[in-house]
């Protein structure tokens, strides 16, 4: 357990020292928002219904950028090898890396979200707790699969190209549900409809979290 924490802390320290991932994630996410702002410029009345989709596209793109970097530091000096030699279940490595990608994404999402509110002129004080719930579960599911696929991609020739090709079709269920849930929160009066998307998101996260944790070792062994 504390080993998971140690791996996570190490990633956090490196990130706050270099700021490699977060800056690129934030920059990219904000650029996506700006592009959508231009693309949807003429739809001022209906902008609120476009926001969920725009937000999650921005989150996904910036998250993918983060995942591309996730194992970069581990590859540089063969650090992954050092991690694989530790006397612990290798699932702990997975969980530590997943936690790191989850937190980085959540930080990026928070900033992108706030900037999105400003850019799209939204006021959402009352909805924030619900939105937070959706963001947390959605991001957790995203990094659950993303960490495993990132570990696969980092060992290939295509690397940055392969990751989105594998990732996007797989995360589609959680992405669609997250957009739907966000839409219900922002645009519908009845929050009971949240139950279905939230159930799918939770199921996705638990299912793929477990599978990834079990298969992670097989992916790294040569």
């Amino acid at each position, binding site marked *: 357990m*504390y*080993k998971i924490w*140690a*791996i996570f802390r*190490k990633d956090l*320290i*490196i990130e706050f*020292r*270099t700021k490699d991932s977060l800056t690129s994630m934030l920059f990219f996410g904000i650029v996506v928002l700006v592009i959508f702002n231009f693309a949807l410029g003429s739809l001022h009345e209906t902008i609120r219904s476009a926001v969920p989709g725009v937000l999650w596209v921005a989150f996904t793109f910036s998250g993918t950028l983060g995942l591309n970097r996730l194992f970069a*530091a581990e590859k*540089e*000096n*063969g*650090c992954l*090898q*050092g*991690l*694989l*030699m*530790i*006397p*612990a*279940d*290798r699932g702990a490595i997975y969980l530590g890396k997943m936690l790191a990608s989850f937190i980085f994404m959540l930080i990026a999402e928070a900033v992108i979200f706030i900037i999105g509110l400003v850019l799209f002129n939204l006021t959402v004080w009352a909805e924030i707790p619900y939105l937070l719930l959706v963001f947390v579960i959605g991001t957790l599911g995203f990094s659950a699969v993303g960490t495993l696929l990132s570990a696969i991609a980092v060992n290939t020739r295509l690397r940055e190209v392969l990751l989105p090709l594998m990732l996007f079709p797989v995360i589609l269920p959680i992405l669609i549900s997250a957009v739907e849930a966000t839409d219900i929160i922002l645009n519908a009066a009845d929050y009971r409809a949240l139950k279905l998307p939230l159930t799918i998101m939770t199921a996705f996260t638990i299912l793929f979290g477990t599978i990834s944790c079990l298969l992670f070792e097989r992916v790294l*062994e*040569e």
Partner: protein
Amino acid sequence: MIEVRNLAKHFGRFSALRNLNLTVSDGDFISLFGKNGAGKTTLLRILAGLSRPSSGELYIKPSRQAPSRFIRGRIGYLSHDTSLYMDLTALENLRFYARLMDVPANAPALSERMKQVGLSGRERDPVRSFSRGMQQRLAIARAFLHDPDILLLDEPFTGLDSSGGDFFKDYLASARAGGKTCIMAIHDFRLGYEIADRLVVINGGTIALDIPKSSLNYEQFHEKLKHLLA
């Protein structure tokens, strides 16, 4: 005790190891010689549990199967790569690995380790600022933080200057006195001969020669090695 039976490792059409048999008793100090691509690194990686053999059996007693998490705690593997994080300081690197290896991670204990490898005073410098030789010293401290019984070394003298080399020879001598087992891939014939008490030559992915050092003096061994690797 390590026992390897009929070990083979293929990478598609290329076989890195084939039909390799090796029995290592506790306390053996083995130097592994061979040309580049002979399979030395592959063998060490399989012994370390980083790579799965394509076929064959591998026992690291008391375990009956391939290296598990418990066996991993007894193995120290020093590879070509230093496995150090460039953006962390030397001390942070050691502390991180100490936590993962269940070793006391307090600053005095780790500073002592730094001193052993001749790096005291550099604890708070990022590894990026280290020379290759210093990185190798730190990598040595890192790989053996948990005082493993089995040392797997892949060209450990790479990058070390003469004082670093002397230090590491002393380190190995004390490990040998402490009854540790060691398998070391090395390209320097004389150095390898000097350190080991058993000489193993790998050629074409299989054991070509396996003799105790006492059976040949260095000149005889050198002749034989040149002949084998020609």
